[in-house]
């Protein structure tokens, strides 16, 4: 499974790509593959606040529905509106074009509660057993 080296990860298969005070959030290869063809994304509202591990968004496929939890706390400053008409972007490019929201981070230290790429890869191996 593809994993981006400089991202951080949660147990619920969300990723966060930190760039200074802001970060992009999305779901991983494992998650999009488990969901199947994504048919709908419920995007968060711009300017809404979210706590670490609280519900941020939701994603639906034909056979499943999943809540997306925010890897870190902050304020939503941008959402990927392309997902409204092309939810399949998450399947095609979950780590880049399929990003879900951009947040302004509240507390950089929170990343210590997340897994690094190496830790996430190990976590995935554990799941496949």
């Amino acid at each position, binding site marked *: 499974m593809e994993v981006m080296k400089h991202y951080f990860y949660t147990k619920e298969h969300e990723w966060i790509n930190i760039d200074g005070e802001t970060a992009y959030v999305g779901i991983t290869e494992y998650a999009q593959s488990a969901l199947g063809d994504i*048919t*709908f994304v419920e995007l968060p509202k711009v300017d809404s606040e979210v706590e670490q591990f609280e519900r941020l968004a939701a994603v*639906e*496929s*034909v*056979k*499943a*529905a999943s809540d997306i939890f925010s890897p870190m706390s902050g304020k939503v400053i941008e959402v990927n509106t392309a997902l409204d008409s092309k939810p399949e972007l998450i399947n095609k490019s979950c780590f880049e074009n399929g990003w879900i929201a951009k947040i302004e981070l509240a507390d950089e230290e929170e990343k210590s509660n997340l897994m690094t790429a190496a830790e996430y890869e190990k976590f995935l191996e554990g799941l496949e057993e």
Partner: protein
Amino acid sequence: MNPYIANTDEEVKLMLEAVGVKSIDGLFADIKPHHRPKSFNIPQGKSEFEVLEYINHLAKKNADDLTLFIGGGYYDHYTPAAISALISRGEFYTAYTPYQPECSQGTLQALYEYQSCICALTEMEVSNASLYDGGTALYEAMMMALRVTGRNKVIVDGGVSPIYRKIIKTYTSNLNIEFKETPVVHGQSDRSEITKLLDDKTAAVILQNPNFFGAIDDHSDIAQKAHTCGALVIESVYPVSLGILKTPGEMGVDIVTGEGQSLGLSLNFGGPYLGFMATRREFVRKMPGRIVGQTVDSKGRRCFVNTLQAREQHIRREKAMSNICTNVALCATQSLMFMSLLGKQGLKELAQLNLDKAEFARQVIGKIKGVEVKKSSPTFNEFCVFLPQDASKVVAAMIKKGFAAGFPLGRYYPGMENYLLVAVTEKRTKEEIEKFAQNLKDVLWN
């Protein structure tokens, strides 16, 4: 005995051999002696003939020959013979939920057509494939409004069926919902009370048209006011009346529900009935119940499938929009047949005929001494009558003369013991109506 079991003794022997067990009892080894029934006193089975004789005997103990002037949300309309013939086709009624679309296109296309007809009738954008009945559908609509708005205050118009209100009360007794009921003024909704109560905590205003008292209203103004506070409007409607009445879509209603029994379903002593729900396209993902959608197959051919299943219990489990699984697909199909057979013009004529007959009845009954037909608001095919005596006693006397004279409102509304709710459908002939009035006069004054 069970005449529907095929297995002969010889076949049983062969099957037991294949399974590797000596006797059928051997298959039940996990059921231990202490699990066995303490008793099983079921009478001996009978033949088809004997059972039907007995059931016939029970049927004769019911009065199916009363002339019905009673409604209360359930109406004595005529069911065209073509419907009875079509709905008894085994391919419709012995099929199950369309889990495999390739072998269920009959049911799926019928439900898509049903959804479209409900939308045409109510002038709403999307409909689901049915809920159990009008009462539970109204409850589901309320829950949907709570989900959509995230608020928990609900305003309920006093004209909404008291039966439906009892259902809502039962389901929500454990939930943190604030209910505010508004009175009925001259038969119609009390605008000033509703306006007073509308605020940014209000999830929904629940209305009914025609209301339980038979009064017609135009709720467009209430819808406008509700929308300015971000509240939704839910309207429970009587489908046959929509042949001529202003539609909830025109009024700006957000969620429409109702009882579809009047669309070709027999009265059946309480069920099965048909709950319908329609709403705005933007709320489709929050709607409970199955939804059939159109798509194409692998060869580009048009076809129909259960869609948006991620809302439902088999996927969402405890986070589902509703727990509903089996709905009333056959009743929905039956109502589709009715709406198709009557069609655009037929439903309009049916509604007009109901209106005309009811108007005639109002005139004839209104001539009886001491009887006052309530005229403060327009009505469709049901209206309130004030009697000089207790309405339930009058009804008891009328029933002995072969008339189900109406529904005594004192049953659900204390203080209204002299009020009778009278319904007149297209089935009531001029002669029946005149006889009804004559008998009513006799009961009151002789």
